[in-house]
């Protein structure tokens, strides 16, 4: 996990990150969360076109020991899921910022939903 986190990501206190990519927002898990989970062995992702409000469970990630629910850091409609994770969930451990992303969403509510999110440095301080 030596790869740097992308510039400009925002993190939730429930350990998801969001990256504004112009048309869509990319969502993943933070390095801290992945470190806590250990080896990830299974990922359940939502269907494309499904919609979630901020704070809703949209995915489940399982480590060897336990299953964890993943919450939407912002509200939005799923436009793409990272299919590669289905057969290679370990990508999240290996490369959480790039290959380990979970979903891309379209969001009309980003402006208000992102108010409670933290910049990466502040997030790290919060969880440390």
């Amino acid at each position, binding site marked *: 996990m030596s790869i740097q986190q992308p510039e400009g990501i925002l993190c939730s206190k429930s350990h998801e990150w969001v990256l504004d990519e112009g048309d869509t927002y990319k969502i993943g898990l933070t390095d801290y969360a992945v470190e806590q989970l*250990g*080896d990830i*062995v*299974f990922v*359940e992702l939502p269907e494309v076109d499904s919609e979630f409000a901020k704070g809703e469970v949209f995915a*489940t990630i*399982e*480590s*060897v*020991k*336990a*299953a964890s629910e993943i919450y939407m850091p912002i509200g939005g409609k799923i436009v793409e899921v990272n299919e590669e994770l289905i057969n290679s969930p370990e990508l999240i451990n290996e490369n959480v910022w790039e290959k380990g992303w979970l979903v891309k969403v379209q969001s009309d509510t980003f402006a208000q939903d992102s108010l409670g999110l933290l910049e990466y440095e502040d997030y790290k301080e919060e969880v440390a």
Partner: protein
Amino acid sequence: MKKTFLYDEHIALGAKMVEFGGWEMPVQYKSILDEHKNVRENVGIFDVSHMGQVFVSGDEALNFLQKIVPQDVSKFSLNHAHYCQLPYSNGTLVDDLIIYKLENKYLIIVNASRREADVDWFKMNLGDMDAKIEDKSDEFSMIALQGPKALEVIEKAGIKKENQPKFFTISETKLFDFDIYLCRTGYTGEDGFEIICKNSDVVEIWKKLLELGKEFSITPVGLGARDTLRLEAALCLYGSDISEETTPIEAGLGWSIPKDKKEDYNGKKVILGQKNGEIPLTKKLFAFEMLDKAIARHGAKVFIDGRECGCVTSGSISPTLGKNIGLCLISFVGECEDLETSLNTNEKSIGTVIQIMVRNKLYNAKIVKKPFVEKKYVK
């Protein structure tokens, strides 16, 4: 929470610590999957000092043990280990045990979380028998060395292979000049050893084994991989697969129980009755493999033909097989009564498709034979 004498070593090795049976134990060092794999391919070293050691001696030690376990202790040979259970009078389990027969005494290994319950039960059963029960768990530490290269590590440590105890036996010996019990036992399905030593010696033994095990790719292994290893070998975990609510026959441990033991013992009527088929089972532990993509965890509900009929007692991925596996307890009462006849033999049960509820959805699984991964014991 209690700490083992190896606590500082675990922290220095970067372990993630968790609570287990009242102890603060390492769940993993770097990666559960890597640790698991290394035990199957090379060798792993585990701190199992949370396990308890109880010695039983005296003129009536044999009579006492005959009363409390279904196994025939009179047939135990010197320096041999035996897998035993500790039933209540109704046949359900206080604990499961390993009993070693030593010169003039017996050494009983008990589960960490059951130590007090076991010792209380021992004392309650002692009556006026002339036997001494000594719980020495606080004096001893325990290290497990498991995997195909465990023998070589012990040889490198100064005990030649021909002098190492054979499968399921114990020897009182010296390791790096420390007095130890060296046992050819374990909880992974691999060949290997368990080393019982004084608390004061354990740090040095641990460090030396890790050091000279380097050439055999030794790694420390936490409870996370210990759990996936024992599950692949379909070894029961007390508190999950067996409990105060299961008898050894229901748990599929009938192989360890003789039919011809003359002495009476706690729970004999139920245990033997179930073993002989005179008392029908009301539930039974089965091994399953997921057919659909989901991991069934402890507590997940099990369905057969739309009827809820039990729950998962242990469930995980199998790192060796790359499948999701588990054990489940299926009930044969109420609307599931007919399952007793449809699942009562291996021939009938194996291949049966069941459904397991994970996050409110049903996923298919099938009953398979135990163990999931063949044991590598060298007998």
